[in-house]
């Protein structure tokens, strides 16, 4: 079963939190791959997604964050992939929260608003750096929020 299916199948708890991590990592890798082709970050995201699928079955742990780039300025294609991934994760979380603009997503939405303000064709390196930074923060926020939400029943039971 793929990460896309598993996260919908499991009940809330640690296994679903791990399945969400696998879903987020796979989405990130797929969107980057579609927009920009293969890269170290894509390979790392797929590797971490595989580890998360194992964790969802009770083997091993879940990484704390999505893989990060080693340089500060992203290409336009990388930015497109990152934005597509963040939009997809946000949509999933909003659906999970049963609201179009839930307060839990405020920090993700703040980064998306910053991205919207600076999103232009052929941006210079200064703007690409800021866009990459905002998208990376937004992706990390979405990843963490998803893990908390999917583990919600376990947290409330403690």
């Amino acid at each position: 079963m793929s990460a896309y299916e598993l996260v919908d199948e499991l009940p809330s708890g640690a296994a679903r939190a791990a399945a969400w991590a696998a879903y987020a990592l796979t989405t990130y890798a797929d969107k980057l791959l579609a927009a920009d082709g293969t890269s170290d970050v894509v390979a790392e995201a797929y590797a971490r997604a595989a580890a998360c699928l194992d964790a969802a079955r009770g083997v091993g742990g879940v990484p704390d964050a999505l893989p990060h780039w080693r340089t500060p300025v992203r290409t336009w294609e990388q930015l497109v992939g990152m934005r597509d991934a963040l939009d997809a994760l946000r949509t999933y979380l909003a659906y999970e929260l049963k609201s179009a603009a839930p307060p839990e997503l405020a920090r993700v939405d703040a980064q998306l608003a910053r991205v919207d303000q600076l999103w232009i064709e052929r941006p210079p390196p200064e703007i690409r750096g800021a866009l990459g930074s905002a998208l990376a923060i937004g992706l990390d926020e979405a990843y963490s929020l998803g893990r908390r939400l999917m583990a919600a029943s376990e947290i409330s039971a403690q």
Partner: protein
Amino acid sequence: MGLFRPARTVTGPHGDYWEVYVSKTALPAWRESKPGGFEYGVGDPRGDLLELPFMLLGALWGMLIAPLLRFLVLLPASFVRGRRSRAVRIEAVSGFPHREVFLWTTTDDGVDRVLDEIVNGLAAGKFVQPDGAVYSGRED
């Protein structure tokens, strides 16, 4: 909007004077070549005298002619790149006690608001970071 005329001028609370330029073009950097490897004080002094014109020509080439040629060759590409992009550069330039340039980059949608915020900030002695703009700090 222009490279050679400030869009605004502003004086800070401590009397520091700023000219704020708004443009779509990032001018090519002025890069002087490294000085040549002349050796001094060795060999025949008459030989050193003969080398003097070449040293002067080398210095003139490295400090003026080569950087100017590089600048002029890259300038059209900079103009074209600027015209094709919706990015706008806002540079605050202070000439005293020494020249300093601070850079913000924004989009053409928000340039008026961002410019107002930057000018108000400089008037209050602050380098603000407006929404919808990227503050890059001091330019080298």
